[in-house]
C-alpha cells in the first residue's frame, strides 16, 4: 500500500493505473473521492453539473446520464482529509499514481458562478 498526499486546493484528480478519481466536495461540505468517469460511456463527470434532487447527483456532460454521488463513491480508495490535507491510500498494484488539478464545473452554478460548496 502507498499513501498519496496532496492539498485540496492544489489537486483534485487522482490518476491510478486502472482508473481515475475526482475530489468532490458535497453539498454538506464533505470531501469525497468519486469515480472521474461516467459508468455509462466514460464521460468526464467533473465537467458535469451537480443536481440536488432527489439525491445529490451529477449529470454527465456527454449523454446527460444522472449518477448519484453516493453511487460514485463505491469502490473508491480509502481517503482522509484533515482540513485541506488529503491522504489517499492505494494498493501498490495501482502503480505510482498521479495527482493534478483539472478544471471542474461541478462546483459552479449554471451561470458559471461558484456555488456554496465551491472550494475555499
Amino acid at each position, binding site marked *: 500500500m502507498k*499513501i498519496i498526499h496532496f492539498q485540496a486546493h492544489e489537486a483534485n484528480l487522482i490518476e491510478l493505473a486502472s482508473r481515475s478519481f475526482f475530489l468532490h466536495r458535497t453539498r454538506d461540505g464533505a*470531501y*469525497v*473521492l468519486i469515480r472521474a468517469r461516467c459508468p455509462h460511456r466514460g464521460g468526464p463527470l467533473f465537467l458535469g453539473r451537480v443536481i440536488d434532487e432527489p439525491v445529490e447527483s451529477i449529470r454527465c456532460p456527454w449523454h446527460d446520464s444522472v449518477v448519484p454521488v453516493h453511487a460514485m463513491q463505491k469502490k473508491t480508495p*480509502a*481517503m*482522509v482529509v*484533515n*482540513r485541506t490535507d488529503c491522504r489517499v*491510500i492505494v494498493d501498490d498494484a495501482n502503480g505510482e499514481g498521479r495527482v493534478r488539478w483539472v478544471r471542474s464545473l461541478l462546483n459552479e452554478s449554471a451561470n458559471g458562478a461558484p456555488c456554496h460548496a465551491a472550494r475555499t
Partner: protein
Amino acid sequence: MTQFIRELHGVPAPAAALVGDAALQAFVGRSIYAESKDLIHPDNPFRRPLLNDAFTGWDCEEYTLDDLCSNGSLVANRVLLSIYEQDFVFLPRASFDAGKRSAFAEFYDRNARVTGEILSCRLEKLLFSCVSKAVHVSGDWDVKSFEAYFEDFKQRFRAEKLSHLMDSIASMRDPVGGARMFLVQMAGDFLVESSAMTRNVVGNYGPVQSELFKVVIDECGYGVFKTKHSTLFENVLQSQGLDPIPHTYWQLYLPTSMYLNNYYNCICRDHASVFRYFGAILQVETAFRLTCEIMARMMKNVFGPSAHIEYFREHTHIDDHHSRMVMDKIVVPIVESHGEFALREIVRGFEESLVVGDQFTAGIQHQIDWIDRVDRDDAIRRLPACAQPRPMRAGSGELCGTKMADAEIGYQVMSGRLDFVFGVDKHLTLAAGDCITIPPNVLYGVKAVEDCEYRVYPAEEKEA
C-alpha cells in the same frame, strides 16, 4: 430527563438556545462559579469562576476553529469542563473546612448535574462541530489500508508546531515564566490524567475492554500513588514552585487548553463515540513519545538542574508500548470484529485528535508570543483608535475575572494603579497616565492594585 435531553436535540435552534440560557443561569448561579477577587484558588478544586464581564452570551450555534480563542469559547469551555468533571472525585488535601464542604456540596449537587446535562448538549455542538467538520473520511477502508495510513503517520510525524513553541519559550526574555505558564496549561489535563478514559473500561465488550484496562493500569501507576502519572506531573509542578492541586490556576487556563481536555471528555462520555476514542488514543499514545521528548528537552534547557522530568521520561518509555498495545490489541481486533463502520470512526478520532492538539499548541503559542512582547515591545503602550472610551472605576484589590480579548482593546489608567495579568508570572502594572493595547485572542485579567480610575478603549468597529 434523558428523554427530555433527547428531545432537546430536535427542537429548533432558538428554542434550544432559550432552554440553554435558562440552564446556564441556573448552573452558574452557584457561589463556587461566581467571579472572584482572587486570581488563584489553592486547595479548592471546586472553585471555578465561569463567566466574566465580557461575556454576553453565545451568538452562534457552532464555532469555527478560528473562534476557539474567543471569550465565548473560554466561557463555554469552562462551563463544559465543570460539567464533565462532576463525574470525577476531587477532594481538597489540606483541610475540609465549612467553606470547602459547602463548595464540595455545590459542585456535586444533583440539580447541577441535571442542568449540566441540558447545557452540555448545546455546548458540545457549539464547540465540537468544527472538529467534526474539519475531518472527512471516505472510501473503502480495511485493516491493510489503515496499517499503511498509520505507518505513514509514524514516519512523518515531527511535532513541528510543538517544537516551534518550545523554541519560542526557550528564547523568551523570561523563559522560566513561559515554561511555567506552559505547565499550567497542561495541568488541567495531566492532574486528572486518564480520568476521562476510565469511562471506557466499564461495561462489557469483550477482550478489547481488558486490553484498554491494561493501559489504564499503567496510567494509574499500578495502584501505587507515587507512580501514578498524575502524581508524576504533580512532582513536575512542585519542582517549579507551582501548586499541584487540580485547578488552582483555573483562571489562567486558555480556552484551547481546556478544549483539548473537553474533547476527550466528550468522546469518552458519549459511548457512541467509543470507536472514535480508540482512534484518538492511538494517535495520542503514538505521538506522545516524541512530544514528551521535545517537552523534556525544553524543561531541562529552561529550568536547568531543578527540572523534574520523570513524567516525560515515563511517557517516552511507556507510550511506545501503549501505541503498539492500542494498535495490535484494540484497533485491529475491533476492526476485524466490528467492520468498516468502526474503522471509519477510528480514523476520524485519530484525525480529530490531531486537530484538537493543533488548537492546543496554537493557543499557547499565541499567548506566549504576547507575554514575550509585553517585555520587549514598547509599541503595545498605545491606545487603539476609539472615539468613545468607557470610563471605569475599581476599588483596591478588585479583580475583573480573566477573559479573552475578542478584538484589540486599550486601557488607560487615569489615577491609581492597575495590574494586568497575562500568565502565571506575567503581571504588568500601569500607573496614572500609562496605557496598553491588548491584541485579539489573548487571555488577560485586570486587578486594581489601589483605588483606580481608568478608561477602556474598545477597537472601533470596521464598516462592513
